[in-house]
């Protein structure tokens, strides 16, 4: 697609819905007033633009080679196994800095299953956290090319607003923010940490 091409109403692609969403998401993260507000921003971006209200955020603890459930919305992460959900290959991709989308054929209920996405949150060329987008809203069937652009934006620009100065330490601060569905258990060990 030629991104410079004007659309039917005569407006440049920079004013298209997808570009406006990217601009709003970038601004929301950049203007966050603290960690709690940045987490609210992350939830709003995922709900408003990516179409999910079930998400979890895991910090990467390189010193202990594991993941720590940090925050969640709409889902209880107590029983959630990030490593099992990602699989070894998915985990390696995310640790390398690539997003990973998992699609399974059918849910246990027999209903058509939808995609889950795992987005690396990057700082200084390393994955410092993983955003798991776990269930799409009924009106959203799959992720598309524009969603991938939003994944990239979150990957590149969310770390500092979310973790502030602690992001550069690449170690667990032990902090945890409450939210609906939160009550995460710490330390989900797994492979791929050195990928």
């Amino acid at each position: 697609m030629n991104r410079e091409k004007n659309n039917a109403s005569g407006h440049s692609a920079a004013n298209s819905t997808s570009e406006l969403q990217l601009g709003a998401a970038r601004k929301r993260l950049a203007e966050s007033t603290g960690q709690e507000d940045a987490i609210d921003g992350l939830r709003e971006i995922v709900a408003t633009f990516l179409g999910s209200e079930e998400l979890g955020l895991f910090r990467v603890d390189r010193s202990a080679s594991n993941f720590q459930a940090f925050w969640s919305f709409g889902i209880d992460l107590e029983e959630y196994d990030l490593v099992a959900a990602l699989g070894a290959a998915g985990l390696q991709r995310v640790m390398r800095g690539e997003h990973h989308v998992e699609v399974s054929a059918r849910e246990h209920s027999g209903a058509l299953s939808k995609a889950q996405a795992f987005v690396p949150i990057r700082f200084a060329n390393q994955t410092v956290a993983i955003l798991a987008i776990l269930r799409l809203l009924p009106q959203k069937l799959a992720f598309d090319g524009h969603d991938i652009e939003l994944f990239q934006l979150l990957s590149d620009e969310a770390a500092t607003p979310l973790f502030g100065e602690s992001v550069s330490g690449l170690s667990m601060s032990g902090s945890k923010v409450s939210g609906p569905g939160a009550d995460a258990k710490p330390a989900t060990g797994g492979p791929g940490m050195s990928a």
Partner: protein
Amino acid sequence: MSKKILVVDDSKTALMMEREILERRTPYQCVTASDGREAVAKAQQERPDLVLMDVVMPNMNGFEACKMMRQQAGTREIPIVLVTTRGEESYMEAGFQSGCNDYITKPIDSNELVALLQSYLGE
């Protein structure tokens, strides 16, 4: 003088998106509120030409705010467009009963929103 739109949403991200659409793609002036209660007060104070309002909000939801605006002389005639998710479309009968003129679904498509606003306010 440019026409004024009151945009109401508790999500800062949604407000930023809607404001971006209005500022980049329309000549309309934008004022904002973050819940229904604030919207009712701002509508009285600012007398916008149109209200674009989310449904699910804290303190006072979009339906209640819509009803209150319809009960007050200064805001009775202002067109109100509710913003809803597709899953909530079945509830829009209640929206029309509360007095809204129209609705648009999230995620908002900028072309759709601009066309809808122009149908009420002109170019």
